[in-house]
């Protein structure tokens, strides 16, 4: 009798058309018919994203993630924290992406041997073994065009000739014997702002997701410390395992022996409303009149609280109502485009000059006889601000211990728009008024116009 073994039993890779194109078993073979339950769920789901991540079947449990339009379906036989499996599967995808540049069905099929070697190293008996990309790269060299050519000619291999040592040390994320002629360490502070702004320009929600991505190419075993001017901003953070928790808690200093190459040092979140300065404002007026076949469209945007840094790569997009047949708009700068099929309006604004604010004005033609559209469209904005982190986070200094040479150190800041939406004027449901009437006394501060997205 076989006991139901814990952890990951098998892995199936399924493409969007429902074909299994790779399978890997870490224990006894599980028949691929187990995926029928998955296919059933896949058929039932209206969108690919709607397949439930956990599917119980009579004898197994299927836990799947969907990335790059490939389902990674893990087969589990007994109780295991589902996040454990999900996190691992995402780690697998990240590794594939790291190795092959893209994670597509074609890339996986082309590199099936490397994929198999990787999966073999990443799990032992269903339990994660080596998931650090530094270690894996030492074990299995990522394929490059050059190496593939050389391999075919010389018959040499992708598998590392030397056995890795990192896994055996106290610094399992770093390989040993790292050597560079130019020692450099770069840190990118990248912040994404997610916000919902209502028509009057007041912020409904705003939060910043920040990450510090590092590219560290330093010889030997450097021990780095990174300190901030304003560490108090970082109260909601998660770290790469190399960061010493204790030191952070005591001194608010990031102390770590970095992995070699690219890695995400930490990610953080700033949610407090008043800390988040909204760098852009939008004035817009989109109106449809009942009975008329014309609608008016006006939109102006300008910078606000950008600390002197310019807004770049500004892109406005909006999903216009179904009733809109076409648009006749006039941009003051940049180019605009309206797709009459998908009803998607996009306007590539480019750079914003504070002296001459960009605007887009004109009319929309509506389907004759159609009733006035239900909702006004929301406006999505994308932009970039170079050399500035919106939260105001500043790195104070970077020091290196343990090695003698002087590394080149660099830091870069950038802000991007994440999910940045501006809401239209409200056309809410009737019962909003009842509620507001009832609660006006209690909640006078709550603004009208919150009611549509």
């Amino acid at each position, binding site marked *: 009798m076989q*006991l*139901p*073994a*814990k952890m990951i039993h098998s892995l199936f890779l399924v493409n969007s058309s429902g074909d299994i194109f790779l*399978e890997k078993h870490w224990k*006894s073979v*599980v*028949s*691929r*018919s*187990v995926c029928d339950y998955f296919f059933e769920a896949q058929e039932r789901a209206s969108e690919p994203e*709607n397949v*439930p*991540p*956990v599917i*119980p*079947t009579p*004898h197994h*449990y299927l*836990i799947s993630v969907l990335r790059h339009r490939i389902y990674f379906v893990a087969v589990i036989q*007994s*109780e295991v*924290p*589902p*996040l*454990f499996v*999900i*996190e691992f599967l*995402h780690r697998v995808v990240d590794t594939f992406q790291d190795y092959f540049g893209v994670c597509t069905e074609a890339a996986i099929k082309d590199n*099936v041997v490397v994929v*198999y070697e990787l999966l073999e190293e990443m799990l*032992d*008996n269903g339990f994660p073994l080596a998931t650090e990309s530094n270690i894996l790269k030492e074990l299995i060299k990522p394929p490059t065009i050059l190496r593939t050519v050389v391999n075919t000619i010389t018959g040499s*291999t*992708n598998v590392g000739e030397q056995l890795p*040592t990192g896994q*055996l040390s*106290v610094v399992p994320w770093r390989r*040993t014997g790292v050597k560079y002629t130019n020692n450099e360490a770069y840190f990118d502070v990248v912040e994404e702002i997610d916000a919902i702004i209502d028509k009057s320009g007041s912020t409904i929600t705003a939060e910043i997701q920040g990450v510090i991505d590092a590219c560290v190419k330093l010889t*030997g*075993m450097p021990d780095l410390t990174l300190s901030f001017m304003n560490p108090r901003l970082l109260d*909601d*953070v*998660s770290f790469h*395992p190399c960061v010493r*928790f204790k030191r*952070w808690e005591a001194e608010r200093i990031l102390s770590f022996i970095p992995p070699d190459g690219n890695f995400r040092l930490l*990610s953080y*979140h700033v949610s407090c409303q008043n800390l988040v300065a909204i760098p852009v404002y939008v004035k817009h007026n989109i109106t449809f009149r009942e009975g008329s076949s014309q609608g008016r469209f006006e939109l102006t945007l300008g910078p606000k609280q950008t600390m002197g840094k310019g807004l770049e790569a500004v892109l406005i997009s909006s999903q216009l109502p179904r009733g809109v047949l076409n648009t006749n708009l006039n941009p003051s700068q940049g180019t605009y485009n309206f797709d009459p099929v998908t009803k998607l309006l996009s306007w590539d604004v480019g750079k914003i000059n504070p002296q001459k604010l960009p605007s887009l004005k004109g009319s929309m033609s509506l389907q004759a006889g159609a009733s006035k559209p239900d909702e006004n469209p929301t406006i999505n904005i994308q932009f970039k601000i170079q050399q500035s982190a919106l939260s105001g986070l500043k790195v104070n200094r970077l020091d290196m211990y*343990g090695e003698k040479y002087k590394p080149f150190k660099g830091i870069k800041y950038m802000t991007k728009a994440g999910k940045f939406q501006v809401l239209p004027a409200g056309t809410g*449901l009737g*019962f*909003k008024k009842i*509620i507001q009437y009832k609660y006006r006394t209690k*909640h006078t501060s*709550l603004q009208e116009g*919150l*009611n*549509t*997205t």
Partner: protein
Amino acid sequence: MLSMSTNNLSYSDQGGTDSAVEVGQETTPTSSNAGAGFGLFSVDFKKNEDLKEMLESNKESLKLEAMKRVVGLIAKGKNASELFPAVVKNVASKNIELKKLVYVYLVRYAEEQQDLALLSISTFQRALKDPNQLIRASALRVLSSIRVPIIVPIMMLAIKEAASDMSPYVRKTSAHAIQKLYSLDQDQKELLIEVIEKLLKDKSTLVAGSVVMAFEEVCPDRIDLIHKNYRKLCNLLVDVEEWGQVVIISMLTRYARTQFTSPWKEDGVFDEHNERAFYESDEEKTRDETEAKPYMMDPDHRLLLRNTKPLLQSRNTAVVMSVAQLYWHLAPKNEVSIVTKSLVRLLRSHREVQYIVLQNIATMSIQRKGMFEPYMKSFYVRSTDATHIKSLKLEILTSLANEANISTILREFQTYVKSQDKQFAAGTIQAIGRCATNISEVTDTCLNGLVLLLSNRDETVVAESVVVIRKLLQIQPTQHSDIIKHMAKLFDNITVPMARASILWLMGEYCERVPKIAPDVLRKMAKSFTSEEDIVKLQIVNLAAKLYLTNSKQTKLLTQYILNLGKYDQNYDIRDRTRFIRQLIVPNDKNGALSKYAHRILLAPKPAPVLESAYKDRDRYQLGTLSHTINTKASGYLELSDWPAVAPDQSVRNVEVIEPEWAPSLGKTGKSKPAKSSDDKFYSDSGEEEEEEEKGSGSSSSEDGSSSSSSSEESGSDAESHVQKNSSQSSEESDKSSSQSEKSSSESDSEKKERKTKTPLQKKTVKPTAKDGYHTIMEHIFNEESWTYVTKNQHTKTIFVNVINQHSVLQTFSYSHWSTLCVSLFTQLCPLSLAFPLQLSGPAFVPEKSHDLLHRMTGKGLSAQYQFPRQPCLYQPTMVSVQISLTNTTDHPLEQIHIGDRSPTGLNIHCFNTIECLEPEASVTVFIGIDFNDSTQAANFQLCTKEDHFSVSIQPAIGELLLPITMTELDFRKLLGMNESSATITMAAENMTSQPISRPVATVANLGMVPSSQDNVHRFAGKTASSGAVVLVTVELRESSTALITINTEKSVMGSMLLRDLKLALAQT
């Protein structure tokens, strides 16, 4: 074709545990496979033939090419088993990639071809003895993955051996192999538990996660195995790799629930519910309640909570979730909310992660609204969310709703109702319904809003609204005839059967409130009866019956008409219902008795439906588990037990003296460093008598290492133990890494006697003579009653005891004698940090150089110098001993010289005894021990006299943090797998010629020589004082006066620093 299909069949049979259900399901894919295979079949067949040839060829590249294709076949799920004989021949190949691919193949097919698989076993057995740890580990991995029952004994042997391998990586592999063997053969359980027990004692962070995994799989009920390792696991946790953390945390959660009393309230779970009912989410009151009763949290309980908290910042979502569930299940109520922020953070991760986290939050938010209310906005639905995410967010928002935030939530809900995703819109309407029932203030508002939705263009929305309105009206039936009338008006436009049925039911139920409309509706229904859906028909029959009872005058004929229609309906249920209703309401001779009660039967007051969360009962499963996610018990789910009413014996977690170690715990020395791994043989040898004494004597670990003196914090359970007589004994405590630090005394009788004889010594005061330096150190040792040692070597003991007896003799001991004695004792008593003995050796060379600690000018006449005598520290093995010479250059005696404040605060210094008086021009030499924690960070402390304090600091060279060890050349080579740093240098001329290379090396670092078989290679070995990590140095002399210095140590930072120092010393300047 025939062979192909048999292959497929056998393939599906291998599913093993798959049952008939799946086999039945399998027909489709199998046949489609076969169909797909058919076209390729002839080609495949040929391909396989040429694969065989390639595999049997002499060319590596051809073999490799063939294996790559074979692996491709396996990956596609195609059968490649007939190649087994050809593949297995290559198992001993030198080419690493080829070998790996053969391993992949073997693991996949060995089960099917057991006899042939046995051919490969000897290769692995050989590899298990390989000097390279990685080869040993991979051999064990593959060997244990071959699921062939016949090799169980071989596997067992291999696992046992690997479990005591000196490489932690191999030990980790052996922990994985335990699970594999167990699933292959459960009869091995007892033997495997022994191995697990052994591995649980392992101190390597690499091993911890894997062995706990094995524990969970093989013997999760053997909680007794955890006791002794509990504190160690807690302390190691931060440094364990992330996957191991998850496993350990979930195991410790279960453990804690069996070992500690409830921090919530004295009487446990029942009250938990009460609280909820009475106080809702009112945390303040809960806290008061808990504080009112005396509850003392077990320090071990606190230790677990404290050590898991930093992991909330892990990037691994599974780790964060497991800490969150630990807090949920173990922490006092007022502390649980610290996990909130981290959980909310996870919501920005991948969709699948969000799904699991939201599920858990849904369960949590039912019990503890307060936890998530401040983060309400994080649960607002975005249009891009997947359906299952949306409905979970809705669920949470509904649970969070209260009087204060309901208007915000309802406004948010309104936008959801308009969503394109109709399933979600319907869910929102249900949520509105739930809010309306939960919060009575908004019931009317919600009801009105829902009524407005009835005129919505979308059918699903309307239908759902009707259903929800029906439920709401049932809860509050008074004065809602308006709404019922309104619904009756809309009735013609509503086409969804469920909604129509609901309206009809409402009409019937409240027909007395709408006396005019109801019969009219019935009339319309009579017309359309035949074209209605079944559920609608049933409700028409119901409505007719109810109206017949209340208003028979107007509806008698209609009812009879409908009943007649129903009688001939195609559906059984409707025919049955019709028959039943007719018998019930239409009085006739036979059933008169029943029809008397018809009114009461049909129009009985009906209990209102309860609208509650689907997550209400989920809390019976441990959060974060698969069972919680699927809301059924998954196989292998381990129940979380209730808190015990009375805590089991706490002392079981105390760690006994496990290894013979010389640990005189002098005074309040604060933290003692962990001793390295235990050695059972030693232990049992040390005699029954001692063992018994040790049992009760471990001192309990107390709060964090920051407060160093804790003698008063001893737990009561230890009170009886004889050790308590020695108050100084109890001052030990565990700090971050010391779970096994407690050393207790275990004197034999003879020693006790000795103590009496030496008591007078304690009163001796220090005379300021030069010799007294040695005297002082003696004082330190013999002063204390509690100096302890355990040894199997009775001979040494006697010598030592004699030494004590003849105190006068001691005075004449020369320094070198003394040190030799110390070293020899140390060597015998020192813990063994690895599987094979690391013999401490005497220092090869003691540099005379002394450093200024305090200049006489700054010290107002007190001058101090220090040097490193390179002796193992007597006080604690993890300390470095420092010799300090104090001289009084003033013309008046200095009194009360002692060590004051130190920094960093955690710094562990063993001070010298206060020197009461130092005469003018006199000097005294004292010894202190400093635990530098394997870093060159300076130890700062204050040197105090009666009047003054002088801040001084000792900065050790890296070489002084080491202790020399001896080992054989063979062992040395075996250990070389550690991190390596190396450099080539040009030797200084004098180093090449005038003296052996050992001299400059020994000057720089306190290392021992290792005999070398080659003339030009010199080897040195040592271990770090604090953590006992081995440091190996190789100096290879090459031609033209260059040399290659290689340092191997797992302390990579130390390695590179040592390399720098050695380069300086050896290189040409």
